[in-house]
């Protein structure tokens, strides 16, 4: 089972050096996790390292495809608030 990085990753490199399995690939347009290498940090760390440092919500998914850091969980910004502001700026 493996984690994955999806669109929205800002290529900030924070996760890469932490991965105990060298599973993270610095590629464009955004970083990726090598499914065959990732072992979910099993036996090495209590928390998956990539998901514990990634600053962007929603870009790391666990083996079930569920975001490890859902919207609002890292920034404290309620998703409705973000959506409302985006609409406001778009309407200007």
């Amino acid at each position: 089972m493996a984690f994955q990085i999806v669109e929205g990753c800002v290529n900030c490199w924070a996760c890469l050096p932490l991965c105990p399995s060298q599973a993270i690939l610095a590629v464009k347009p955004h970083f990726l996790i090598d499914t065959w290498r990732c072992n979910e940090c099993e036996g090495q760390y209590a928390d998956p390292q990539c998901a514990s440092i990634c600053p962007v919500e929603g870009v790391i998914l666990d083996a079930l495809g569920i975001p490890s850091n859902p919207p609002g969980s890292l920034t404290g910004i309620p998703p409705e608030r973000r959506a409302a502001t985006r609409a406001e700026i778009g309407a200007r």
Partner: protein
Amino acid sequence: MLKLQVASRAGVGASAEGCASSGCGGSSAGLSHLPEHIRAKVHNHPCYSEEAHHHYARMHVAVAPACNIQCHYCNRKYNCANESRPGVVSELLTPAQAVKQVLAVAATIPQMAVLGIAGPGDPLANPERTLATFQALAEQAPDIKLCVSTNGLALPDLVEDLCALNIDHVTLTINCVDPDVGAHIYPWIFWKNRRIKGRKAAEILIERQQQGLEMLVARGVLVKVNSVLIPGVNDEHLKEVSRLVKAKGAFLHNVMPLIAEPEHGTFYGLMGQRGPTHEELQQLQDACAGDMAMMRHCRQCRADAVGMLGEDRGAEFSLDKIETLEIDYPQAMARRRQVHAAIEAQRAAAAQPPAKGEILISPTAIKRVRRETRPVLMAVATSGGGLINQHFGQAREFLVYEASAQEVRFIGVRKVGAYCSGPEDCGELDWVLEDTLRALSGCEVVLCSRIGFEPWGQLEAAGITPNGEHAQEPIEQAVASLYQEWVAAGRVAMPSPELARRRA
């Protein structure tokens, strides 16, 4: 990553270097509590010496992408070229590319005296990249000063490495010393392989920052402390921060305003947290200045800014342009030495009283004026060299000075349209002028080399007197002589209308 600013209150002419013509000289006087070797270090540093920034340039390279904490004023999307906010860069460099860029800039702009690594993440959260860059530069370009900024979380572990590379300036961002305040600024930190949230996160961060500060001071490394002023969150608290960091030996405290707009996508921006007004910032800087040297000329540069403070020539040195460049650094170093010597000679000459027969009025002369005159804020458009030498319409920032019966003192920098670059984003030129008027609030005069007819009228309508008569003159002398003129004309005898209103 944010950078901010601070100031000193010392009177003009009291400066240890004898820079009588320079309100900026206040900076050296403000640093007079420091030992001589520290003042010497600060003397040529454009980020730390208000006077030096007129002559020397600094540069940042963006080699450090990762961060180990989250701040509510930061958005980790760091590749927007249209913004000049702190922490925003366009091109991430490898250490080798960064070294090449630094050598190219140092050879082209001999005034470049300082190389900093400030981001776009936290330099010390990227220790290999940051240290490799410093290591190579220490070997290849020993005439460049190296400095680094950090949030402090990783600092205690890296103090020895920094000392080994002879890094003599560290900027530490400390927004609080109380975890209850910190819980409203930092949503999380990454610590010992876990993400820690809430008060606990702030507690660990604060402890590490204080430990790092103590370790650096104990090893004789200069430490500047930056704080972001967040109204309603840490404004009052910053006075305590200022006291504490001074007591621990930080040499400068730089209080910068929060920059928060919904467009930035930050927590504060989206949640409607406002930044401080110019007046609030100034008041807090004044309150902290009683405690220690403050620095008011900080421009909150982008993490890849190149050039004199407030100017960005980064585009001239993009990767594709430097790739083919051959640099003979030893030769460049010889030229740099000459240029620096010439600058020092010029600075020494400027510190002398004007020769007989010249009609320049020294700022000290205004001390003789009767005391009932009120202080006047004057904004200045300058592109460097300590002169009034910029066209009003080209100014992206204004230096603000306060002239009073006692002194001319440097108050701070006001940016204009600073956070986006193009009409595409910012609307019409009218908008820019409006923004300029807002930036100049409280100022009664704008000194510039020239100014267009239309803005002239609009400034006057807004109660600001444009003045192009002092073009190419040294700033402090022009400010002093204009103040003198106003005194003679009876224009400053009474409290300004605005002051009167505020007091009523």
